[in-house]
């Protein structure tokens, strides 16, 4: 973590967020763009608050709805999408294993969602140059969670409610409540990519 003094207005925020795990910045979704602007590629964060799961099939439906001018099942304004399709919840649990899926498969849909208000994404792996450009233009952030840590990550999810496309099963859209979900800033609002220029198209 490097403190940038021009972000002085965020200083108190950093201070308060460093209580506990000194390496991680605690942030809460829905995010405002000022907060997102203060994050840098490489920062470790703990995400709390409300995010929505969606992966391949849900993206395809949202995309088709946008093309056809149909109403969307959720408002995209200020939302964070988590690219994730959980395993079924065992008895007494809110969700099963719940780690990120490969973000690159969503790349072709992403700029349209960012233009309509989505502010952040959580996934794993590389993003295309077009997505990076759109992230920069919209002041959004792409977070990476650890792929294959689905059991651990599921422990930070305190509520999961299917809110759209239930017929898609694991690929439906869920409203998720997170408590200190560990992630890394991969692409920040300036378009800086922790993975460098490597991309998947």
């Amino acid at each position, binding site marked *: 973590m490097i403190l940038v003094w021009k972000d002085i207005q965020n200083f108190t925020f950093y201070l308060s967020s460093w209580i506990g795990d000194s390496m991680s910045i605690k942030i809460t979704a829905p995010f405002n763009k000022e907060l997102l602007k203060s994050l840098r590629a490489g920062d470790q964060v703990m995400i709390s608050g409300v995010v929505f799961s969606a992966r391949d099939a849900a993206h395809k439906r949202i995309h088709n709805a946008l093309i056809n001018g149909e109403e969307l099942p959720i408002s995209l304004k200020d939302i964070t999408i988590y690219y*994730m399709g959980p395993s079924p919840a065992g008895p007494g649990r809110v969700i*099963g*294993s719940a780690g990120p899926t490969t973000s690159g498969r969503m790349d072709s849909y992403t700029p349209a969602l960012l233009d309509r208000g989505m502010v952040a994404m959580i996934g794993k792996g590389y993003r295309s140059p077009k997505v990076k450009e759109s992230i920069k233009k919209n002041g959004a952030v792409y977070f990476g969670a*650890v792929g*294959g*840590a*689905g059991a651990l990550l599921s422990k930070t999810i305190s509520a999961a409610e299917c809110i759209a496309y239930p017929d898609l099963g694991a690929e439906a859209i869920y409203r998720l409540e997170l408590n200190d979900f560990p992630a890394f800033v991969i692409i920040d609002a300036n378009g800086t990519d922790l993975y460098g220029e490597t991309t998947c198209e």
Partner: protein
Amino acid sequence: MREIEVAVVTQNIKEMCIEANHFLSRDMIDCLHSAKETETNSLGRQVLEQLNQNLEIAGKEMIPICQDTGMAVVFVELGQEVRVVGGSLNEAINEGVRQGYREGYLRNSVVNDPLKRINTNDNTPAVIHYEITCSDKITMTLAPKGFGSENMSRLFMLKPSDGYKGVIDAVITAVREAGANACPPLVIGVGIGGTFEKCAYLSKKALTRPVNEMSAISHISQLEEELLAEINKLGIGAGGLGGKYTALKVNIETYPTHIAGLPVAVNIGCHVNRHVTRTL
């Protein structure tokens, strides 16, 4: 002829599906643990720490290690002195997968038609490979395969003159492209030789060999070591966030090939390198 009931096959496959998705083999656990202890890159180390915690939680609380509980790949070594009774062996294996994925709360990730893409809702069919052996036993290895890593796998039809260097370049190319997408630290299964399909099969089979075991062929075990060193120079690291553990192990299987060819298959395996073997 020794008789084996299909119901026994189903019961075992069911248990193996649940076991494989919650517990890695001892060699994988030790390998991930020692990677955590020896990684010096701070982000890479954070990732490895999460992976070790993840394994602990998965086993203790019976939450699948990864939400992608994979497509079930089954290697069957069928002794020619065995008579399977009570039904079809194929169907018995698929029934085991069906029950295991349902009762183990595992994710159904299989679609019926690769283009129409309707979920079969029971994770069947499995991909089943048979080999006939001279015994009166059935040995089954179940290896659920996630597609984050499967999607990054490659097959190269090299020229014989490409030799060792060609093989190294092919593997490095596949690993570099896989990078963060395939959930490193990776286990790399490599097939060299045979025909197009045999080579791919070998690379998948290679992933089921313990990571603390080298090839028994000396120049191949040397190549395994050299490849691992080269891969870990890439600096992709755990989670793609940097460090020396892009891969944990390279396992190579070989087979005789044609005078005109040098097939090389690279099956990218993620750190959730799951496989369970049972002999009936």
